[in-house]
């Protein structure tokens, strides 16, 4: 380790301690365990800064925060999963004594599958789970494909129908827009031509754009034909509309993202440094 980096380390450490003490003293009387709470707040402030420091360049503090984050979060999900799924959902179904041990009310049988009690049917996922773990063994690894097949297969079937319905059929049928909105003849159309948003012309133009836009978009996503000639033109219009959309959605998001940062900085300046009342 270079001397400079050691010095930086020490400085940061010193600042950490100072701020901790200052925080603790400022919280004295207001809160009990002020030392401990002072530490917690200072530490989370430190982590916040560590992450932000990444914007300058990768550095030991970021690495520290990152690795800590990875470890803790993995463990967090593990515990979550254990309590909510295993204890919350599995155990109450398979064994009364165990659920008594974990102090969770047993769930009544629903006699759902093949008239087997849950206590039996719910061993199936356990077995599948164990099969999955078997992949760690050299020669039994292949069996881990079975639970995988169960998951992938059932979700594939699940997705197939639902996406076909919501992303395909319903989208297509909602493309059936009237291209002639309350049409009362060409003369009437031109005599009443105006540009206000609810006017006939604007609504009609809108419908046309939507209809042609969808068409061209689909043409752009055509793979089995070279994009040439009229077809090529269609696909070009398609990509134009796509680009406009992407630009729009990007611009739309900007504001919201900024307020995220506001939240963090308010924590730093307010909760930690106490610069804002």
């Amino acid at each position: 380790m270079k001397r400079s980096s050691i010095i930086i380390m020490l400085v940061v450490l010193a600042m950490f301690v100072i701020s901790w003490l200052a925080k603790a003293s400022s919280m004295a009387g207001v809160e009990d365990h002020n030392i401990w709470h002072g530490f917690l707040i200072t530490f989370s402030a430190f982590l916040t800064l560590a992450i932000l420091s990444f914007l300058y360049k990768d550095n030991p503090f970021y690495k520290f925060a990152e690795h800590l984050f990875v470890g803790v979060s993995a463990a967090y999900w593990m515990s979550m999963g254990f309590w909510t799924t295993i204890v919350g959902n599995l155990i109450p179904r398979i064994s009364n004594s165990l659920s008594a041990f974990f102090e969770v009310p047993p769930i009544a049988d629903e006699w759902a599958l093949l008239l087997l009690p849950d206590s039996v049917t719910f061993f199936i996922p356990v077995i599948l789970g164990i099969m999955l773990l078997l992949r760690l063994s050299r020669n039994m690894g292949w069996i881990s494909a079975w639970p995988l097949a169960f998951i992938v297969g059932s979700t594939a079937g699940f997705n197939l129908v639902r996406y076909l319905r919501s992303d395909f059929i319903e989208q297509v049928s909602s493309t059936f827009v009237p291209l002639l909105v309350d049409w009362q003849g060409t003369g009437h159309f031109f005599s009443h031509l105006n540009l206000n948003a609810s006017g006939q012309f604007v609504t009609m133009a809108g419908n046309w754009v939507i209809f042609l836009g969808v068409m061209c978009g689909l043409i752009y996503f055509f793979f089995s034909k070279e994009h040439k000639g009229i077809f090529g033109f269609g696909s070009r219009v398609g990509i134009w509309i796509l680009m406009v959309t992407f630009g729009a959605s990007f611009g739309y998001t900007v504001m919201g993202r900024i307020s995220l940062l506001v939240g963090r900085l308010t924590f730093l300046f307010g909760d930690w440094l106490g610069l804002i009342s």
Partner: protein
Amino acid sequence: MKRQVPLALVFIFGIFMIIQYFIPHEKSEWVYEFFLDWIYIIGIFALALGIWSLIRVSYDKIKYRRPNWQYAAITLLGLFFMILFGFDYGRHIFSAEGLRNYMFVSFFDYILIPIQATMFSLLAFFIASAAYRAFRARSALATLLLLAALIIMLRFNPYFGAVTPYIEKTAGWLLNVPNLAAKRAIIIGVGLGIVATSLKVILGIERAYLGKD
């Protein structure tokens, strides 16, 4: 055996789920709900597998003194303590108080939340740098992207947007008309892609997820 059984399973469960969709009856609903529960439960075992992989990778890092091996130790420590607290010794070890354990909660509030929120807030910076880098009128397409973004941003900037009704109108139109059209085209395409791929999976044509033989 090694190949056929999984493919058969995929086919059976896939077809079952499709049929189930058309049977509103309680019985089929039950089976369906059971499957969802099962998937969660299997997921937990898989998570154990993942944790194992995390531990092994970090452990190797330390063992062979790979670059940044010191930090791997931090990961392991964090993991170890969080699990320890998570599986708390409230009434007796493994009491459902696990998630309410004081240290577990403070780790969550003072380590996970701040880092998570900060990572998320990095977006504010990146959205700016991305805009600066990419929104340049290099080509016709890039210009379209740029203009659309500018109009919408002006619209939602409380100071420009409010004053010029023209921008307000245009932005509204952009969001309601071309935006709708393009999104719909993408959605239809994606929908088709998903349907086709699911079908390929069920029919056992797409089997990369099993690792080819």
